């Protein structure tokens, strides 16, 4: 015991010494694990990295609009270390935390990686902000008493709940429903939440067919045949990236979108890439109030412009999530007003802060998990052929997220108790 106290004392002394030495010149280093290789690098890794580069450069230059118009974070410049998330997540996390000694880790898209590093964040007492990853389990079962771990992106639950609500609210025939989802945790969870939501909303739907092609299969001819002949009136898919795009390219010419109402929960990411191939009327989500669904604000306009100026195209939703994570870190750090990770973590808890996608509240997971609303709309090109959405319905955070003390699965199963929709 005494030894430990001595050690702890030494550690804090070192910390103070370090802080004094660093003054304000020493930059803050962030470890940013995003996919730099593999199938997720194009749709996720690239926009996330682009967004991080834009936000960090502009933060350091002090170019952001209020409330982020101060330079850097807490007066210190910010540096980024990009790491390939496709490598061994646990090892690379340790390398960032222990070898590079980064001040915070901001990243991760894969739920598997998020689950693997979550306990480490607490064990190593390393400030960590998870950017994406769909699984709601992070604070439900993996780390139930978090201190240093945060997730500023909403869970995948809202995608499925929102999609089901949108279909019901727009009067789509729900008698026969089908799904095509990738055969891995993400696709299985999305479909389970979606069908659960249908039961909660009492649509009385029959499941016409549930297709689970292998992830990255690329060839969906047989699945599309099955969907076409199933008689489904509504089809749910949580495909993302290249798989989603291949699905659109293969399904649209065969008239699947004309036959059924198709809801694509990550459809927004394909809009810039395949503006002429997505049939008008397809139901599009963006996994939150991002991009085309973002509420008008100075910050949103600034982010769109700055990103487009730097990278030549508007940001897709993963970019918005990265921006949201970095701004959350800045907010918490400056609220704490100190460089002590524990103090920053304390300030991050239950934080409410502005992002390009509106206000984010760290409301569940004991104040470590963000809640946000979600919006869906139908695809529509304007007169110039630019992609856009219409018939948008936005659902408030309280409408699509479970309350703090309930797990997503239990909440859906119980029929959304406590949900408040406008």
């Amino acid at each position, binding site marked *: 015991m005494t030894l430990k106290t001595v050690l702890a004392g030494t550690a804090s002394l070192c910390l103070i010494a370090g802080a004094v030495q660093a003054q304000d010149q020493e930059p803050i280093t962030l470890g940013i694990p995003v996919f730099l290789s593999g199938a997720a690098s194009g749709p996720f890794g690239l926009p996330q990295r682009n967004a991080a580069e834009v936000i960090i450069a502009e933060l350091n230059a002090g170019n952001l609009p209020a409330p982020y118009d101060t330079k850097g974070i807490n007066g210190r410049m910010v540096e980024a270390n990009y*790491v390939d998330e496709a490598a061994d997540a646990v*090892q690379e996390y340790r390398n960032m935390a222990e070898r590079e000694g980064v001040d915070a880790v901001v990243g991760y898209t894969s739920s598997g990686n998020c689950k693997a590093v979550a306990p480490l964040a607490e064990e190593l007492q390393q400030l960590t902000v998870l950017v994406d990853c769909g699984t709601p389990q992070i604070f439900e079962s993996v780390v139930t008493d978090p201190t240093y771990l945060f997730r500023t992106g909403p869970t995948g639950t809202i995608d499925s709940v929102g999609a089901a609500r949108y279909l019901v609210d727009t009067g789509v025939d729900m008698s026969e429903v089908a799904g095509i989802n990738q055969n891995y945790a*993400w696709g299985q969870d999305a479909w389970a939440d979606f069908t659960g939501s249908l039961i909660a909303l009492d649509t009385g739907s029959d499941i016409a067919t549930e297709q689970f092609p292998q992830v990255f299969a690329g060839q969906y001819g047989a699945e599309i045949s099955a969907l076409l002949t199933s008689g489904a009136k509504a089809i749910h898919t949580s495909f993302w990236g290249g798989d989603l795009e291949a699905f659109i390219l293969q399904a649209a010419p065969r008239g699947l979108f004309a036959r059924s109402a198709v809801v694509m929960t990550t459809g927004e990411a394909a809009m810039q890439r395949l503006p002429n191939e997505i049939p008008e009327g397809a139901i599009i989500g963006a996994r939150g109030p991002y991009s085309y669904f973002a509420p008008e604000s100075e910050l949103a306009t600034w982010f769109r412009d700055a990103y487009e100026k730097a990278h030549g195209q508007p940001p897709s939703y993963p970019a918005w999530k990265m921006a949201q994570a970095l701004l959350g870190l800045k907010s918490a750090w400056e609220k704490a007003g100190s460089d002590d990770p524990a103090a920053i973590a304390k300030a991050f808890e239950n934080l409410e802060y502005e992002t390009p996608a509106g206000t984010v509240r760290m409301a569940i997971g004991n104040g470590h998990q963000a809640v946000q609303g979600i919006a869906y709309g139908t695809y529509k090109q304007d007169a110039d052929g630019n992609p856009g959405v219409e018939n948008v319905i936005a659902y408030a955070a309280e409408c699509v997220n479970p309350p703090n003390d309930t797990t997503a699965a239990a909440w859906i199963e119980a029929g959304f108790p406590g949900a408040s929709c406008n």
Partner: protein
Amino acid sequence: MMPTLDFRRDHLFVAVLALLVIVGFFLPSWMRFLIQTAMASGLVALGVMLQMRAGLVSFGQGLFFCIGGYAVGLLAAKAGITDVALLLPAAALAALVIGLVLGLLLSRYREIFYAMLTLAVSMILYGLLVKAASLGSTDGFNIPAVSYFGFVPDQAARPDWSYALTGVVVLAGCLGALAYLRSGAGAMLDAVRENEIRLSYLGTSPRVLVFVVYAVAAVLSGLGGGLWAISSGHVDPEMTYWTTSGQFVFVALLAGRGSVVAPVMAYFLLELLRTYALDIAPNAWQLILGSAMLAVIVLLPRGLWSLVARART
């Protein structure tokens, strides 16, 4: 004097490995963790190397790595059994049982067909685990902190304990493999590779030897998987994906067949190379890794251990 069969001096190398493991304990924690996972995975590569002595290349050794990992994971996370005294034997036993069953079939196969069938079986397990939503599908699941013969180290000391455990078990695994290679069943593996017909006519069934080596490799790999699971605190089906198995094969070849410690050390070198490649060239680390592989194959066709062996003679 007996380059192929003589393992009487290999104890020396195990002792050297033991020394390195002890030195590793005092290295920075990220490096120590790297050593720890490399040792656990190295045990699997050792299993692959043993089969290679018989001329058989398992492209599905991830199967047992995964079985060991999931055995530990299921017991710890789902059944609440968190003591290593039960977890690791369970990992070894699970791998052994599956290994004995599959060994009956696989011991009939040779060459590329052995490789392909081991691959097929491991990919079937992958498919099953991906379907198992209750086990987290591709996300896998996390494993709670473990106890050591009833002792529960506090959070700060956990990495020390799991490192020590890994070191001890991997060294024991090496010694076990050594005893096996020195036994009749192990000594005759080379004879299986070189001339099965001659071996049968000398009175020993190659198929039985293959069956045994498959089972021994299964146990080592199961232990490796269990240790890896305890170290990383997480298991997922990637453990039995073909690229994972491919890595074990690569390390076994990189190491060569000369010593039981070679695969463990080679795994460490690979991990070191990978982590620095990632650090230096996050966009081209696979290119660096691939080039290093090619270089080893071209320059050292008998593996890295041939350098040590050459230095000895």
